[in-house]
């Protein structure tokens, strides 16, 4: 009879490890959020299924010859290949035109990274080691691949929680951002109109822009080169005008393939013993804090600029809130909020400019964090 015990070994193992059952519920919750609530389904669904997959009894997909462990080692741990290749696709999707025709929006892409650094201070005060604090702060950038990359390079033990938080909060932009913006603006400020008079942008500018941004980032924050470089490489493919087929492939099949595997690979970090800790809950809370203060940072910066601008050149401070990386959701949220206050106030193109600036700002922020971590001997 004992030979038949192989049929019950799995069940007995699960009963002895109730934390794994809890991870099934978390996986189910992520799948529910992806399907029913449309929360970043392309990432949360693979992560949810992966969370169930890596919490099954006995070595299956994890362990020395497990496929998920292999994907993690090759795709993320050894070279950060998955998030970086995804950036090629993202770069090919971005039209920097609205930013190039209104380049002052770049400043908001910088200001709206404030929450990242404030969160690092808070996390350290809460007792997190600096490398985990830095990794948690990057959630505020609303940039999943950068969050994953920074936490991996710094060898943070919270990569699973950070990835879940980054993608969940990205999906919650329409809820989190309006609340944060209303907190620090008056109705009158939200009603400021900004005429849109775009300047024509030459093709030469569009081609040179990704090359020059890579050079500038590479000189000042060398550790951002992989992030910025791959993002800008994708954009160069898009803008050169000669590689339409490659551009379409990068935007579609390449980005989709990597997305499928990135989600399920990240789930490697969602094994019950690593994931179910108080630290995970705190990282999720810190991520929310970072996200809110990134938005507030951009808005307050716009308000400060307004102190020095003439009455007819004032900036609607909500535009500052779009300086995060969640593209294009954040720009759409700002447009919706502006129209709600005044149905003739169209801010979409300004917000899109700030939003694509946020794409650059978030990868630069990630790179600067890695540069300082290297300088301080943390990697």
């Amino acid at each position: 009879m004992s030979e038949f015990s192989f049929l019950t070994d799995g069940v007995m193992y699960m009963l002895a490890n109730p934390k794994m059952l809890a991870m099934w519920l978390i996986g189910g919750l992520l799948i529910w959020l992806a399907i029913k609530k449309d929360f970043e389904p392309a990432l949360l669904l693979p992560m949810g299924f992966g969370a169930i997959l890596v919490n099954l009894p006995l070595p299956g997909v994890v362990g020395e010859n497990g496929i998920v462990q292999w994907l993690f080692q090759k795709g993320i741990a050894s070279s950060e290949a998955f998030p970086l290749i995804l950036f090629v696709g993202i770069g090919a999707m971005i039209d920097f035109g609205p930013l190039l025709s209104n380049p002052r929006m770049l400043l908001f892409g910088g200001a709206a990274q404030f929450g990242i650094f404030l969160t690092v201070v808070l996390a350290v005060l809460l007792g997190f080691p600096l490398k985990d604090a830095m990794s948690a702060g990057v959630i505020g950038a609303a940039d999943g691949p950068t969050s994953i990359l920074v936490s991996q390079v710094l060898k943070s033990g919270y990569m699973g929680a950070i990835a879940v938080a980054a993608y969940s909060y990205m999906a919650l932009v329409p809820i989190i951002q309006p609340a944060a913006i209303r907190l620090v603006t008056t109705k009158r400020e939200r009603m400021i109109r900004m005429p849109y008079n775009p300047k024509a942008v030459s093709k030469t500018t569009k081609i040179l822009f990704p090359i020059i941004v890579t050079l500038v980032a590479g000189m000042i924050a060398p550790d951002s080169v992989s992030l910025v470089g791959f993002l800008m490489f994708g954009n160069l493919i898009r803008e050169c005008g000669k590689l339409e087929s490659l551009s379409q492939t990068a935007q579609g099949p390449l980005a989709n393939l990597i997305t499928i595997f990135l989600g399920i690979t990240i789930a490697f970090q969602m094994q019950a013993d690593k994931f179910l800790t108080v630290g995970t809950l705190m990282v999720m809370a810190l991520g929310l804090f970072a996200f809110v203060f990134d938005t507030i940072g951009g808005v307050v910066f716009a308000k400060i600029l307004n102190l020095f601008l003439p009455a007819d050149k004032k900036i609607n401070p909500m535009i500052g809130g779009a300086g995060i990386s969640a593209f294009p959701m954040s720009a759409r949220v700002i447009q919706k909020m502006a129209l709600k206050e005044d149905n003739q106030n169209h801010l979409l193109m300004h917000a899109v400019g700030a939003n694509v600036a946020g794409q650059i700002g978030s990868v630069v922020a990630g790179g600067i964090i890695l540069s300082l971590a290297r300088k301080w001997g943390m990697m």
Partner: protein
Amino acid sequence: MLNFNLLTVAFTSLLGNVTNEDIGKSFRLMGLGMLGIFIVMLLIYLVTIILNNTTKEKNDE
């Protein structure tokens, strides 16, 4: 090096494991990080203005 003893003591009483050195580094990260981002963004801003002006005549669009 600034002394963050007060913060260290206050937060140690809450959760523990707060070191003066890490607090100092986190504040330095905030200052240097925001400075670094603004320098990069300002440089890109200037380059964009120069590009827009120098390529205006050859506008393809």
